[in-house]
């Protein structure tokens, strides 16, 4: 193909210009505008940002951060364990592929379906409560299993652990197996090998997986909405609700802050890892 490269990339670039760059610029601009009940008024005001900083929003940000940290910790541990098992304990490539596919298949089901699939298990009359009652462990059904912080975290882990497994597994597969042998020959215990050899060398995968999980949880409103029974607040939900009431400047201000917080977390994450490398 002797067609000029610029021409070939143009349609691709145009999509991002029209549907990513321009919208984001508009979000930034409109966050300084004012709005009446039915129209946007071009102006310059910091009022939207001032309004964002109140106790309720602060609580919502903290709650979203809490979910973020919990989900990140659980998916990282679980994802690392699963990836480690696949990469180092499953020796044949065929079995590796098969087990990997086994993990990816549920990924092809709609996320909302995967969320509501917890209802028959965790509901008031769900299997868990039925089972525990039959075993006489509890007298009355546990209420906090569904539509609670617990079910939100559970659903996040259920939906997004794959985002950790794939990049970490990918990094682990590139580790020269001789290094593991060397560590063992040098007298390192299993844990020491994992901590001092495998973890640092899986760094890229861990960072990529973490970025995925953190950005998903920070901006989420669907999972928290459905699994929280529409009762738990999140930053994404604030933006969604404000947008549906056509409070675009407020929503935009929230979006700018959300974006700033998320980018700071990503930046911090990459710094954290780089510092480790330099030590």
């Amino acid at each position: 193909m002797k067609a000029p490269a610029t021409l070939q990339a143009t349609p691709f670039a145009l999509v991002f210009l029209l549907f990513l760059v321009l919208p984001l610029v508009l979000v930034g601009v409109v966050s300084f505008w004012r709005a009446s009940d039915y129209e946007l008024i071009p102006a310059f005001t910091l009022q939207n940002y001032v309004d964002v900083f109140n106790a309720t929003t602060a609580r919502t940000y903290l709650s979203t951060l809490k979910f973020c940290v919990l989900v990140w910790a659980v998916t990282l541990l679980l994802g690392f364990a699963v990836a480690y098992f696949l990469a180092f304990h499953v020796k044949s490539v065929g079995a590796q592929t098969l087990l990997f596919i086994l993990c990816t298949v549920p990924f092809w089901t709609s996320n909302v379906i995967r969320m509501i699939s917890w209802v028959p298990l965790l509901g008031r009359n769900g299997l868990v409560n039925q089972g525990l009652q039959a075993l006489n462990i509890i007298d009355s059904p546990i209420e906090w299993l569904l539509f609670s912080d617990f079910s939100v975290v559970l659903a996040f882990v259920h939906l997004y652990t794959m985002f950790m497994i794939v990049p970490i597994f990918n990094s682990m597969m590139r580790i020269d197996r001789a290094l593991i042998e060397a560590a063992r020959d040098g007298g390192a215990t299993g844990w020491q090998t994992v901590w001092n050899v495998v973890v640092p060398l899986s760094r890229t995968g861990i960072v990529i997986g973490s970025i995925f999980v953190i950005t998903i949880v920070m901006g989420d409103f669907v999972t928290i909405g459905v699994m929280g029974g529409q009762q738990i607040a999140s930053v994404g939900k604030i933006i969604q609700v404000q947008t549906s009431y056509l409070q675009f400047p407020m929503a935009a201000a929230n979006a700018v802050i959300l974006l700033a917080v998320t980018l700071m977390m990503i930046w911090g994450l990459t710094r954290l890892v780089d510092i480790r490398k330099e030590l």
Partner: protein
Amino acid sequence: MHVDKRPRSFYALAAVFGAFVLFLYGPMIAIFVLSFQGPEGGLTFPMRGVSLHWFGKLWEGMGVVDVAAAFRRSVALGTVVMLLTVLLSLGAGLAFRKRFAGSGVLFYTSVASLIMPSIVVSLGIGLQFRLVDTAFKAVLESVGAAGLLEGYGTAMGLYTSALGAHLTWTLPFGLLIMLAVFNRFNPAFEEAAADLGATPWQSFRHVVLPLIAPSLVGVGMFGFTLSWDEIARTSQAIGDVNTLPLELQGLTSTVTTPAIYALGTVTTVVSFVVMGCTLALVKFLGKRRGA
């Protein structure tokens, strides 16, 4: 490699893995089974008979929601997204093989699109179209086209704002796959074609395209399934009609019958059919290449 005894950590991790797989599949199997619940049955076990009752209910529509129409819209949109994702990613993939101005910016923009909180993108697109509407109405008013003004609702819609929102999500995946493909692509094939007198188009059509066809099918499948399942980016960037996942999300808080499980089973079957067709196509293309 080693035939030595498996360490204890193997069994511990195997147990973790097994539990993880059970965790992934258990709930899915539960709703699959419950979607065949008898007419008297409820949202939880036990099963009260086995029937296709709830699938029938589903097809009749659930309340105000026309599930069949939403289904058709999602299939149509998914197909358009799939085709555009393949074409645009292929173009960009070919461009990235050569050097061009702004290639770095384009790459980082598409990576940024991938990790951008979806609600922010969605808000941006919704905002953009609202401003376009306002501007367009002002123009119509100033030229005095009252008839047109009356008929004009919004530029937002399935094939404008929603399509754009979906592409910001599918194209980065498409590009990453194409980059991986062309990284491993041996340029000797094209050089050989050129030496034998093939025009650039012939060499692309008869050499490059057949070699990368299975990957293109993969990109297409990614495009369709990502679009089929998209909620967050579409949510604020769609006009009056909803896609299937958006309807589904709304239904979770209103529908309290196993019909919603039936809907889950149906959408899952569609995903699996798409996967199956893709794998069959890839296999077919692979075989043809081998022959």
